[in-house]
């Protein structure tokens, strides 16, 4: 496995023994990636680190997220493809990359993104601040630069990163 590249990156922050490293995150998106994944979990003692603006091998910049003691499922991390389409997932076991995946864009997004149309029924609040009992949900209609179409109001969400819940 490709241990050399990983240990190079690991220099910025101490290497992790077991867990998940999400690499090649679009610069500026690390914190939003954590938000999508619901990390750090309340009550959990595992170290979560976000490293931003790291020069990558290609000369461009990237963000990296490391999560100790948790192996994220591929489906779980695919949701981050909405904002970081080039991200890769490295599962680390005993300091080595045991598995490596590229994120894949899902067909649909539900519960992760809010509709960008302020007049959408999914953004409505009543006088007590309650919302309708549905999750905003979308179809992925463009893959290259992801575009989501709201199942309710039919409007397109182009700047997905701004709409992450």
């Amino acid at each position: 496995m490709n241990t050399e590249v990983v240990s190079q990156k690991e220099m910025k922050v101490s290497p992790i023994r077991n867990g998940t490293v999400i690499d090649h995150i679009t610069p500026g998106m690390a914190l939003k990636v954590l938000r999508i994944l619901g990390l750090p979990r309340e009550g959990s003692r595992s170290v979560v680190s976000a490293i931003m603006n790291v020069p990558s091998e290609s000369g461009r910049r990237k963000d990296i997220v490391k999560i100790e003691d948790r192996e994220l499922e591929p489906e779980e991390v695919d949701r981050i493809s909405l904002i970081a389409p080039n991200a890769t997932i490295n599962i680390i076991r005993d300091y080595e990359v045991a598995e490596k995946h590229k994120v894949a864009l899902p067909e649909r997004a539900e519960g992760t993104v809010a509709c960008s149309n302020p007049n959408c029924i999914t953004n409505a609040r009543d006088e007590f601040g309650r919302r309708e009992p549905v999750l905003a949900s979308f179809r992925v209609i463009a893959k290259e630069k992801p575009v989501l179409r709201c199942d309710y109001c039919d409007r397109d969400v182009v700047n997905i990163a701004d709409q992450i819940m």
Partner: protein
Amino acid sequence: MAGFKGRHIVHIEDLSVEEMQHIMGVAAKMVPVARGERKSTAAQGKVLASLFFEPSTRTRLSFEASMERLGGAAIGFSDPDVSSVAKGETLADTIRVISSYADIIVLRHPREGASRLATKFSSVPVINGGDGAGQHPTQTLLDLFTIQQETGKIAGSHVGIVGDLKYGRTVHSLANALARFGAEITFVSPPQLQMPSEQVARLKETGASIKATQDLNAVIPSLDVIYVTRIQKERYPDATEYAKVAGSYQITADLLSQAKKHAVVLHPLPRVGEIKEDVDSTPHARYFQQSFNGVPVRMAILALLLGVVE
């Protein structure tokens, strides 16, 4: 073509061209009943709930008249502020409750996507009676029906859509349906009120012939249908700017002297000043007929979704 019974109509894209044609065919048979010349008991014992969370008297009356003409009954409200049924509860709950009282629901709501949400909680068919700046599919169907009746065909007809194409609720779904039918479309609007590029891109996906211009005079002689929409004053901060734009898109009898002999002028009504009264007496004026057509078209939709006609 799937059956209509029990289905919802939320978005014009929920219907295939074949299904739209079927609705128009049924609507054509409903015309004598809509005029009161023949009686129908097709929907006897059925109840329509018209839930109007924002006022739109014409649309509501048109639906309620349609249900009455089919021999059914209509209940509902048109002002949520005085309606305890809708006060302090979610739309989802209102729909759950009302769908246990009625056989079919028409919903008008200021929020886009409200009808789609209603379909998730309703045990009976939901018809979108207009949601915010979004869809208004029954208006589109009655517009199509009018074009079909008045010009004999939709495919190949050249339709000019004139006025506010940016915010106009009716025009986005009309353009979508016309494009799928194979009509030729020319958008005529001031630059500030052009069809949004997202909509144009979606229309182009259908392979339709689409043009845009600011010059109404230049395009009038080639049009079979002149579909006029209202330019709202609120869109213009400057009153003189509004007057200039509104004036240049006014349809007059004089302007129509350059139009094709059989060209028809349509308008979703109410009109403010877009069509001068001197047009009313010309054979081009078909907007009152269009407005009447709302009844047979809505009768057809109600009857099909209720499953009382095939």
